[in-house]
């Protein structure tokens, strides 16, 4: 657990201190931090069977990111709900139906609990990287 906390702390500090221009083919609703991206949006399943994609959809500019990695199975349960994901872009957007894909490292569920990609709960020190600061970072 300590290891995860340290990793998360590092990510949060990066989130708060090292804001870089967004990556991607269009304006991003999220803010890129080094190679990490923090996105707040709604989890939806798009496409048609069997080639569906679990995406996080930001309403600010109607942008999607396909979620990949271990966390996908967990995030599928949060369809239509607002979450925050932190991850790295692994493939760039191609065009319609094929947005950029994001390997999820951490995510925050609607109950404001943070998890690692495996779903384990991560404790976030309140004085360093509280939810409030993250939301402040997101402009909320």
């Amino acid at each position, binding site marked *: 657990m300590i290891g995860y906390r340290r990793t998360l702390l590092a990510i949060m500090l990066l989130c708060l201190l090292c804001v870089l221009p967004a990556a991607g083919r269009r304006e991003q609703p999220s803010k890129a931090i080094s190679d990490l991206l923090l996105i707040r949006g*709604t989890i*939806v*399943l*798009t*496409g*048609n*069977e*069997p*080639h*569906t*994609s679990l*995406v996080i959809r930001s309403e600010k500019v*109607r942008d*999607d990111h396909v979620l990949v990695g271990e966390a996908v199975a967990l995030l*599928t349960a949060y*369809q*239509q*709900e*607002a979450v925050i994901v932190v991850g790295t872009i692994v493939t760039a957007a*191609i*065009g*319609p*139906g*094929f*947005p950029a894909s994001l390997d999820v490292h951490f995510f925050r569920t609607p109950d404001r609990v943070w998890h690692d990609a495996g779903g384990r709960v991560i404790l976030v020190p309140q004085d360093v990287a509280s939810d409030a600061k993250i939301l402040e970072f997101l402009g909320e």
Partner: protein
Amino acid sequence: MSKKSFATNIHMILTLTVLVLSLVVGCDHAELSSDLGPYRGDVRLFFFRASSRTIDTDIDMRIVSYGLEAIGPNGSEVSLSDITEESVLLNNLDVGTWQITIDGYNPEGIRVGSGCVTVQVSRGLSVQADVHLVPLEGEGSYALDITWDSSEVGDPSISGRLFSLSDEDSSEIAVSFHLHDGLATASGTLDSGYYGVIISLSDGDAIIWTKTDILRIVADGDSAASYAVSGSHADSDVHPLGFLLGFADNPDTLFTDSVGEIDQESRRIRVSVPVGTILSALVPRFITEDGVDLYVDGVRQISGESVQDFSTGVIYGLYRGETHLGDYLVEVHPEQTVLEIDRHGAFSVSLDFSDDPKDVWYILTNPSTNSNLSVPSIGLGAGYVSTDRSLSVAKAVSRTMLPDIRQKSGVDEFNRQLPSAFPARYPTSRHLASVSEEIRFDDARLFSIDYHGTNHVPAICKKVRTGIDTLNGTKNLYIWVEERSWSPSGDRAFLVTQQMVDVLADKFLVPGPANDIYDWVTAIYGEEWGASEWPNLIPDTDDIHILLKDIDGDDSTDGGVLGYYWAKDNYLASSISGSNESLVFYLDSVLLANPDGTEWEADDYWPGKQISTLAHEFQHMIHFYQKNVLRDVSSEVWLNEMCSLVTEDLVADKLMLSGPRGVPVAGTFDYSGGTPGLLEGRLPLFNRYNDQSVNVWLSGDEVLRSYATAYAFGAYLCRNHGGATLFNAIMDAQEGDHRAIEAALATSCPDLTFADVLVDWGKAVVLSDSTDTEPYTSYNNGSWFASSQGGVEYHVGSINLENYSYASQAGPHHTISGTVGRGLKASNAYFKESSVVRRTYEFSIPDGYVMTLVVR
């Protein structure tokens, strides 16, 4: 009063029970059977009598004693008299059918009511039955007279009218008065029952006095009333300003507020409440002008405090001080069979259907598209249910009944490893779009079957159909068959023949307007492909390709994946290496070639499914272009699949296929809701899992539940909001989620929200066995639902969900007590109790729900 003799072997036990007003006529029936015990049984009868109100009749209608006559098997008879309690126990009756008649007598011993019941006595068991006593039918007479001071009324005229309070037909009957000096009289005969009477006395053109009253007519009785007009003239313009029966004042009786309709002309107030509402003790809330009070039977009424029995009409007199300003008749009608309820938290409400037991449904709608709610519960408090109570409750369901149809599941379907090196005669399928003019019959190609172009299948072109005029210009069709699926050289369980390919081509694209899947589906949704701003998409093309192959390589002959469309093929291979660079969709070859018997027919079970799948996958193809490419929105899976499933529905009759509705086609297309025992299509599974979220798409085996929910919801939309026209608008919307439906409805129903639609959908589910429902709540009109789009007429058949079975469960799943559903977002859950006589329901409804009561 006729006296009856006692039967010595009968023991009578009298028990006081609650009196319940009843107006049912005829014999009830009670039955309970067992093979155990002696050849005798017991019957306990409960008596329910009509209201004892006596108004303006010379016969006292109060029932103070009962007489009983029972005729059983083999000439057995039992007689009892002078029963003064409200129930009686008959012991040791012979086993068999007993016809029991109960007569009610007033204090003078005159028979004033009667009822009967048929009871099946079983060995060693005690049967309980209700007997409803109603007034004797027949005609009675009435006489009315009004007197006034003739010196104060120079030009008198009088009018009167009657209307039945007992019958549904409350049309008015004119009363003819004979005028004398200061006196008006009227008389006549009427059928037994209660009547409202309104009398007005005028002086010239001015109404100076009105009277509203209730007249009771009993068989062979005389009813009379005299009214004296005195004091100052009535102010006929004064009326109640508002009249309300509110749930806050009647928390255990009413679900919602019911506002009375005030008719100043007839001086009546009409309040509509749900069927089953207990009317005997209601507290109304009312508003009057300052200084005006309401009185009933001389007692001043306090708004929100005074209790009244509204079992029949109640006369409210308006007074300003001592001055009588006139009367209003308040009638409360228990007539609502569908009611949306906006009460939350813990509360109880009692319903009474003593006169006619009913099925009671509660639909719990979570209208939120993004939040689950705590699970609601409905408990069964005090009550009574008829002995014919339905046992068709949810039971354990065998998973082996899962329908075997899906369009594709899982993500590993293309992991089958094929040789990486193919014979040189197979070019890859890339650039098919741009070289279509070169494709000839028996040409061979390799089709990529994964994203990265690692795996391929060799296929041969077995149909080339070019230059077909359509509304979207000239189109070309190419049907390819993978080698291992082609007859006779292939190695699959069933092999594709030229006949099958020809049939498929004829179903999909033939010359002529509005005569094939291409025309029918594009008329709804638009063209499948065209120009775009994306340089990495394939260019505009008029070529459509269908690849027949054994999807998954499973050689399955009885289910699995029927077909799919994958948008990767719409990209240039320079962007997606596994693209076939063409408009292509895929159908399972083994299932297409699987005949019912030895000879393959296009309308055999699996071939028919595959033809329907053509329409399904073609919608996906169009959807990608219209939504993703042209409108830059990626639809959510449930919306996309819903459109495909409804597309199958819309073309089912044109293809003479049962489609997802699952009503068999035998010679002619059956547009009715079918007959009980339907097992095909998507709706059996919906019946089992009808509390699923509409806008959440499940995975694995559970994906079939999502298909079922998507079709059930789409079929509802199609039948209530414009059919093909609505789905055209859904595609035309800029959104790819539930807002696309709201946008599509904006023209016809601008105020309708997705939440409203969910609530109405729940009602339609419960009412689907009815062909006569309120607007927007119909699955079933007994025939087809018609719509028109793009110059094409569409007809979809009715749906009666009661006819669909899943394992041992027939009809929609429902709970009978306790928790209801799972609180899932954008979902409905159902509670049902059958044949309810009386019941107190104990609710625990979290905030956010909309609850709907449906009484059947």
